[in-house]
């Protein structure tokens, strides 16, 4: 009698196919000569910028399905350009500010295109795009008073927010509203009332957060829920242990992240899942100093976390303009990079495998001709380009306890020239632009 073969489920079959593709690429890489490996590891900045600039200037008819998402297209592209340390020329900048301005509703908020109903997601995208462009013209174009009215109109009695007039309510709507309110300095008690309760009710038994109460834990909503709780200062109300546990378990054998338990890896989760890991680890770290300081030392296990830094770890070419850094902090070598004393206690070992994650992004998601994709066999698109790059930045900066500690050469997979700009984890805009927006919107009258 023939031995009965174990039945393979849909989940197992799909996972098997993806693993084949991914390990095929890794195997090819490992067997290649050094120069091929170097090439494969390169971000290919020129090609990336080419793809991005072309998209900003013209999109084909197949983009009609994104006709109600044009501020998103602006943000995905502009954010990607900013992460690469580049910016657009004045003409394009003015065109972008003008166009986004035409998406602004007369009663506040931004719609998916000129004349479209204001929507929280496109509002978030528009504001982030303008913050990324930076400068007075971009920032002054946002009508903050009307925006306040719009956000209040979207607020629901349950504590959550609706995406648009009579629209759907979920954790994403909460995040987009609060992120905008926070950056524009228009947060108030009315917006935050019962919001923490709503998000708390979306944390599932798995530890992650779902879109609505009862829905399955999901990477995108987990980021949205966690970031919102940070922004309204109610993070400690969540079950952080189970959230951390769920998030780190979303990294699979492919080394990229999946969005949900037993689902497939996808490059965009590089951001949605890695950001919560870093946020949580830094939060624990900041609070440990207060509560568990002594048990740390007696355990002697801090050694496992502390990242020991040696001379050869410093990047050879530092692009850092350290001119604004405090020169009292330790000695400065010829390249303007600060020595050991700056790094002790300002570095941690990331709880997720950051180099492995970078490997997935660079070898499996990155398209050498420009753009990034979900996984092998999928086409590139601007959404994945934005979140793969944003996630890559998060991974590269994951060893830093704070944004003033630059990465070391060994933190960056590939050459140090792969280094991307750091982002503000709660908003996903490049740190420098966020700081500029803070200056602008929070300055004393």
């Amino acid at each position, binding site marked *: 009698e023939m031995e009965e073969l174990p039945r393979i*489920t*849909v*989940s197992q079959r799909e996972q098997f196919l993806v693993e084949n593709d991914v390990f095929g690429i890794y195997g090819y890489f490992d067997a290649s000569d050094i120069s091929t490996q170097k090439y494969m590891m390169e971000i290919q900045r020129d090609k990336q910028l080419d793809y991005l600039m072309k998209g900003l*200037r*013209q*999109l*084909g*008819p197949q*983009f*009609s*399905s*994104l*006709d*109600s998402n*044009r501020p998103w*297209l*602006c943000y995905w*592209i502009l954010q990607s350009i900013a992460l690469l340390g580049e910016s657009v020329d004045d003409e394009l900048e003015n*065109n972008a500010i*003008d*166009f986004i301005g*035409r998406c602004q509703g007369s009663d506040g908020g931004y719609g*998916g295109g*000129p*004349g*479209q*109903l204001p929507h929280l997601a496109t509002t978030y995208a528009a504001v982030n795009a303008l913050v990324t462009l930076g400068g007075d013209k971009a920032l002054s174009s946002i009508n903050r008073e009307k925006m306040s009215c719009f956000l209040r109109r979207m607020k629901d009695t349950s504590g959550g927010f609706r*995406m*648009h007039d*009579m*629209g*759907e309510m979920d954790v994403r709507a909460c995040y987009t509203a609060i992120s905008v309110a926070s950056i524009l300095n228009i947060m108030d008690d009315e917006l935050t009332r019962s919001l923490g309760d709503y998000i708390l009710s979306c944390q*599932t*038994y*798995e530890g992650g957060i779902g879109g*609505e109460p*009862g*829905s*399955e834990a*999901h990477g995108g909503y987990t980021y949205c829920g966690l970031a919102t709780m940070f922004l309204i200062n109610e993070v400690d109300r969540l079950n952080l242990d189970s959230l951390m546990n769920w998030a*780190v*378990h979303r*990294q*699979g054998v492919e*080394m990229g992240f999946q969005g*949900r*338990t*037993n689902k497939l890896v996808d490059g965009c989760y590089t951001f949605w899942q890695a950001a919560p890991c870093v946020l949580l*680890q830094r939060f*624990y770290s900041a609070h440990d100093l207060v509560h568990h300081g002594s048990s*740390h030392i007696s*355990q002697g*296990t*801090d050694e*496992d*976390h502390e990242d020991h830094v040696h001379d050869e770890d410093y990047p050879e070419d530092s692009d850092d303009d350290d001119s604004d850094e405090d020169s009292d902090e330790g000695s400065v070598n010829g390249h303007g990079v600060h020595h050991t004393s700056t790094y002790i206690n300002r570095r941690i*070992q990331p*709880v*997720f*495998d950051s180099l492995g994650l970078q490997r997935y992004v660079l070898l499996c998601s990155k398209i050498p001709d420009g753009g990034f994709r979900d996984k092998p066999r999928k086409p590139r698109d601007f959404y994945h380009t934005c979140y793969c790059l944003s996630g890559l930045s998060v991974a590269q900066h994951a060893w830093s306890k704070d944004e003033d500690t630059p990465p070391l050469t060994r933190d960056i997979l590939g050459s140090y020239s792969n280094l991307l700009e750091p982002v503000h984890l709660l908003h996903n805009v490049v740190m420098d632009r966020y700081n500029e927006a803070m200056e602008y919107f929070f300055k004393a009258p």
Partner: protein
Amino acid sequence: MDTDETLPLSQRSEWSDVVPLTQDDGPNPVVPIAYKDEFRETMDYFRAIYSSDERSPRALRLTEETLRLNSGNYTVWHFRRLVLEALNHDLYQELEFIESIAEDNSKNYQLWHHRRWVAEKLGPDVAGRELEFTRRVLSLDAKHYHAWSHRQWALRALGGWEDELDYCHELLEADVFNNSAWNQRYYVITRSPSSGGVEAMRESEVSYTIKAILTNPANESSWLYLKALYKDNKELWISDPSVSSVCLNVLSRTDCFHGFALSTLLDLLCEGLSPTNEHIDSVRALATEEPDTNLANLVCTILGRVDPIRANYWAWRKSKITVAAM
């Protein structure tokens, strides 16, 4: 009256009184889309009736044409709802309309929100139909996020809980790795008005879950669900012999992944479980490292080796072990 929908709108006499409104993109827009003529024209006519707020039968037909070109246009869906209300249109027909749009692309927030709006208006009479609709979508993609949200909403708002646990079982029989189905099980036992809650269901659910774990010890979904059954009763979790024994059972096997059994044991220890000799021997048998007198520490060390992707996480967990686990 010329209502031939294969003709461009500008050539249909029905629309001859309407002046189409072009998109205010400005002189040099960024991310401009090279719309096909049909798309551009349809949108121009929609803008016109949207701007004049015309809530007529022809407006309704126009929203349908527009949505078939771009089902992601939430402004059109929103306006369609206003027109449906103004016309007091047959909402059962609307359910069919939504189904026809879903055929092309069911991964669209707007479509599902619209469905929810319609179903809510129709009330409990459509409970069965909504369960049937989501079942059909789930038969094509058993983890479809919007379908599951809608199904949960339908159960909550319209009812029909009776067969839900059986439905979950059906899905898990087909694919025990379907985390959405496990999530739905939890939803049913905690929210169903006829369920006695987790307390009443715990014994049968634990038995169900343990069976699933033993068949596939590498299935994370079942381990997470097991822990969930004791979410509000940690004392019972650490004292229930079934929980301990499933861990020990898996740890004693040589042919499977031990990670989830070990991490469950770690969580139990951190929660205050007093390890028995069986626990200690079981863990020591897996250790290739120096046996740590602190069992939780040793479990973390082993996990760092058998679950190397999370090596840093297990080291971090080790540093967090509180005095309770010593």
